[in-house]
């Protein structure tokens, strides 16, 4: 077997140029497939993180009717019994009660339909964590001018700061990402931003009677901290719901869709506003291991064991997003499939040429007593070597790209950015960390190699030694 390996290895280097071209075609296919797939999966993860993990939770417990008719009339009593049932399920990381309903919001100048979300300010820190999203910095045109005048920045960063005019930020890390700052620039720019662009905004206390308004909604309503927000809507069983609420803070929500319509208030405040008593609309749950979502959903359903409730996962209560991801994913997979298909023809061509060139040599080997099966092994190993060199080098070259863009996601600009925002997503493309997709590229290439081996092996099996010796 050792000699078979040696022969196969030496054979592939007999025509270095051809081997390098074949290896290069596999290398580029693997490289682009990994990077493309990583971009896709990273984008999906980001979408899921901002819309699911950071807002709705992976699983929700609802009244059975709420799923079909999400109205306050289909809310349920939030009891200790249901809380203890949920806590029994191992994979549950956090379960927070919420009241969610729509109302008309107005500040006198503008009005807009908003999503009123009643939260427990303490428990909610474990799910959407609005406290972490409180706006701390605002880049008004005047502040942007001041910063540009005060600090000497590279042209690129000046342009990026201007492009983010009127934006609000809840953290330095997001400023750093949006403005492509390295650690040196951060050291220069952050103290100036802290001095010029700091924004006073508070989080809700447990018994707070005020509200938090999402950034884009606040800008639309021309509302600011300290202003009063009027909310008018329909409460439980048609009760009228109308009240005024002081704005305690502005929150920056990553998902642009939510950022355009979200108003947070305390759970107690929302229950009072909507005349709900002790009722809530959903119990939102995040999981320790999201991959076990379906199993946890079943466990929760069994743990609650009550016909009044239903347990839904995010793919059920947000089917649009699931379909969006699936549709896009299929498109990506088809593209990668075409890429590999083209490479497969390249590999088959190489193999056929290798066989044609060495017809007499192969004939001699069989003539002197080499079994056709052993000869086939030589050819298979040659193909495997080509596949392995191409695949491993492709994976090795793509790994640093994955690591870099996972740590430094690409912030989209221009039309692409608008398109993402229109779809309700943050226009940021991080690469997914190493996962199954990485290993799958190697598996796909090996499958291609096995397919490509079919023709040469068939030729060896059907080889006429006399004709081969005359070649």
């Amino acid at each position, binding site marked *: 077997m050792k000699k078979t390996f040696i022969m196969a290895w030496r054979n592939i280097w007999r025509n270095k140029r051809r081997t390098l071209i074949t290896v290069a075609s596999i290398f580029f296919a693997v490289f682009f497939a990994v990077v493309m797939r990583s971009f896709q999966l990273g984008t999906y993860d980001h979408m899921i993180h901002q819309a699911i993990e950071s807002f709705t939770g992976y699983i929700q417990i609802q009244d059975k009717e709420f799923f079909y008719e999400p109205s306050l009339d289909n809310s349920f009593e939030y009891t200790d019994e249901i809380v203890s049932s949920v806590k029994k399920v191992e994979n549950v990381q956090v379960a927070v009660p919420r009241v969610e309903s729509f109302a008309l919001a107005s500040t006198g100048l503008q009005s807009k339909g908003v999503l009123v979300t009643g939260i427990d300010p303490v428990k909610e820190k474990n799910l959407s964590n609005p406290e972490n999203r409180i706006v701390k910095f605002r880049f008004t045109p005047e502040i942007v001018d001041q910063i540009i005048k005060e600090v000497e920045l590279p042209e690129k960063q000046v342009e990026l700061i201007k492009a983010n005019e009127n934006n609000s930020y809840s953290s330095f890390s997001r400023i750093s990402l949006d403005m492509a700052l390295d650690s040196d620039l951060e050291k220069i720019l952050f103290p100036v931003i802290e001095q010029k662009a700091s924004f006073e905004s508070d989080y809700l206390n447990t018994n707070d009677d005020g509200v938090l308004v999402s950034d884009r909604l606040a800008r639309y309503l021309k509302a600011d901290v300290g202003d009063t927000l009027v909310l008018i809507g329909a409460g439980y069983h048609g009760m009228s719901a109308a009240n005024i609420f002081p704005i305690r803070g502005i929150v920056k929500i990553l998902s642009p869709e939510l950022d355009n319509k979200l108003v947070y208030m305390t759970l107690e405040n929302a229950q009072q506003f909507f005349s709900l008593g002790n009722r809530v609309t959903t119990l939102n749950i995040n999981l320790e291991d999201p991959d076990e979502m379906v199993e946890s959903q079943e466990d929760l359903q069994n743990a609650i064991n009550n016909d009044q409730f239903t347990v839904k996962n995010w793919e059920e209560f947000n089917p649009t997003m699931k379909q969006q991801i699936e549709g896009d994913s299929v498109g990506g997979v088809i593209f990668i499939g075409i890429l590999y298909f083209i490479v497969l023809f390249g590999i088959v061509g190489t193999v056929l040429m290798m066989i044609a060139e060495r017809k007499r040599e192969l004939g001699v080997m069989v003539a*002197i*007593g080499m079994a056709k099966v052993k000869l086939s092994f030589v050819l298979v190993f040659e193909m495997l070597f080509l596949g392995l060199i191409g695949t491993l080098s492709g994976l090795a070259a793509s790994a640093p790209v994955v690591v870099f863009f996972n740590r430094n996601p690409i912030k989209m600009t221009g039309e692409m950015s608008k398109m993402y925002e229109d779809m309700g997503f943050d226009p940021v493309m991080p690469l997914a960390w190493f996962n199954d997709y990485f290993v799958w590229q190697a598996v796909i290439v090996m499958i291609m190699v096995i397919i490509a081996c079919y023709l040469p092996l068939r030729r060896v099996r059907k080889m006429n*030694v006399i004709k081969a010796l005359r070649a």
Partner: protein
Amino acid sequence: MNVIEINNLTKIYNESEVKVKAVDNVSLQFEQGEFAAIVGPSGSGKTTLLNMIGGLDKSTEGDIVVDGVKIGELKSSKLIDFRLRNIGFVFQAYNLIPVLTAKENVEFIMELQGKSRVERDERSIALLSAVGLGERVNARPAKLSGGQQQRVAVARALASKPKFVLADEPTANLDSKSTETLLDIMEQLNKEENITFIFSTHDQRVVNKARRVITVEDGHVVSDERRA
């Protein structure tokens, strides 16, 4: 004792509408230790006859018995194994495996036979030394002259300890000196190891060395001369 018995062997090619009788009702016997040359003009059927003796080609009629085995009745895989254990081949165009060194080429056939590493090492070096290439064991074929390559081919043919060696025009591509050296080596191995050598050749120098000369014309054996 006969190593090879050829009985009423006929080969007809049907490649075109015209049937060609390449070998016509040939019967021959070869004994252990013979040094025989099959001669004849181009197209006389000597290579076809050699290919059939070596089990590379199938006869249309008749049979070949090697050491009691009718090789025409063996299945393809069994025939390959039979060739590996019983027949050595030397080709006109050397046909060494280009990616293997001289020693590896000689060892290759013994590795296929499942011989131990020690035995392979010893025999390959001994054979290469016997053909005068003890100093070039690690050279690849591309680094050897035509004569040297053909000597490696002879060493390879003998590596498996075959019952006989078939050599198809082994000197056709060699100069006079290389031909002389090669023939001397083969004659010496024939005498020392009592291995049967059968050549197909046009080369008078080979004919002169042969102790038996079989002349073939139009697929028939027209003469079978034994020399002392």
